[in-house]
């Protein structure tokens, strides 16, 4: 939990950037706290994926986890696609964005949050590759 707490932190920050910039004209009096809570509900697909992964790793013995880790990595395509759909629907239905703007909002959010998260998580390895 401590290790991966950076995920919701970067998500919160990325949504704050989008809220302050792209979504300023779309707020319609909606409060930031309500908006961020509603938006982060888009993490539900990942929570479902985590519960399924937990159930699998609760029964697979430690020496047999190898193939299951690969399968778990490949299966992340499902929550990735599902959460993208959820976020686009959020921007369209809650913030009344057009279809094109909603997709752009969702992609911009991912560009910010995922870049920050990957840089933080892999920063050490990336730094080594860059000779830093």
């Amino acid at each position: 939990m401590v290790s991966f707490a950076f995920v919701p932190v970067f998500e919160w920050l990325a949504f704050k950037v989008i809220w302050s910039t792209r979504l300023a004209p779309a707020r319609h009096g909606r409060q930031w706290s309500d908006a961020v809570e509603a938006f982060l509900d888009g993490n539900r697909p990942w929570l479902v994926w985590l519960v399924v992964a937990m159930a699998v790793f609760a029964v697979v013995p430690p020496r047999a986890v190898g193939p299951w880790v690969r399968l778990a990595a490949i299966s992340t395509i499902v929550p990735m696609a599902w959460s993208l759909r959820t976020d686009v629907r959020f921007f369209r239905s809650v913030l009344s964005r057009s279809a094109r703007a909603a997709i752009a909002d969702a992609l911009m959010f991912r560009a910010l949050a995922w870049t920050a998260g990957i840089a933080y998580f892999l920063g050490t390895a990336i730094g080594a590759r860059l000779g830093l």
Partner: protein
Amino acid sequence: MTARGVIAIGALAIGIAAGTLIDRPIRRPPLMLGGYRVIAADFHTHSSTRSGGGLTPWGLVLEAERQGLDAISINGHQQVRDAKVGAWFSRTFGGPTVLVGQEIVAPTQHVIAIGIRSVVDPRLPVAEQADAIHRQGGAAIAAHPISRFWPGYDGDALQKLDGAEICHPIVYGGKKTQRELEDFSARGSFAAIGSSDAHGFGRIGVCRTYVFARDDSPDAIVEAVRARRTVVYGAGGNPYGDPALIALAANVPGLKAAATTDAPAGPIDWLSRISGVIGLALLVANRRRPA
């Protein structure tokens, strides 16, 4: 709170309580063989502070006790902070010996340093990394030296490395990987090392090194590794290491069993796992959808 929420929290509480009850430290009296103290060690673990691990440094110490380990090294990626916190925790509250370590991450290879005090520059060639480690009184171990990492080790490096991982969880993915680790080990005179490289999946001590040391201090453990006094049981239970020590270790069947088998889960263990999963599943299903 809804009925489903109450059930979810109840299931989680049962899972946590059962898991806490069943997770007892495994404490054995010190094992002496051939005049040496046999230390069950895991020299490659990662904690949660920017090393991608699932456990905090103190969590690793507590988990090491539960896995029957006498010593661990905590190896931050390019940092030694976590390890120092873990070592302090173990000294203060009691627990396995914690060696301060680092995983020196470079594009061409990874090297595990154990028994060090400060960070080793990953931009150095491996031979110079080993020199820097030795100047600090530590030992240098080739981490998961599968074939794609071999170009990182030149002749000088092979001379100066103290150990090489010959058992790592990747060997359970196929015989080819075990052969690659064996082929690397044959290129030098290395202490056989078994390590979990634990990040969160799997468990620490799933691969382990039996070190034949004078005592359980960090200096004695490093000295034993540098003297190649280790035994490792790989996939299938194959032994690696000093032949004389392998013969000694064969007289204690529990050593091989602890290194090669997963203890079967008992009923309380299953209760903990099933309750925990059900509790979290219900919590996720019960989350109130904001308007």
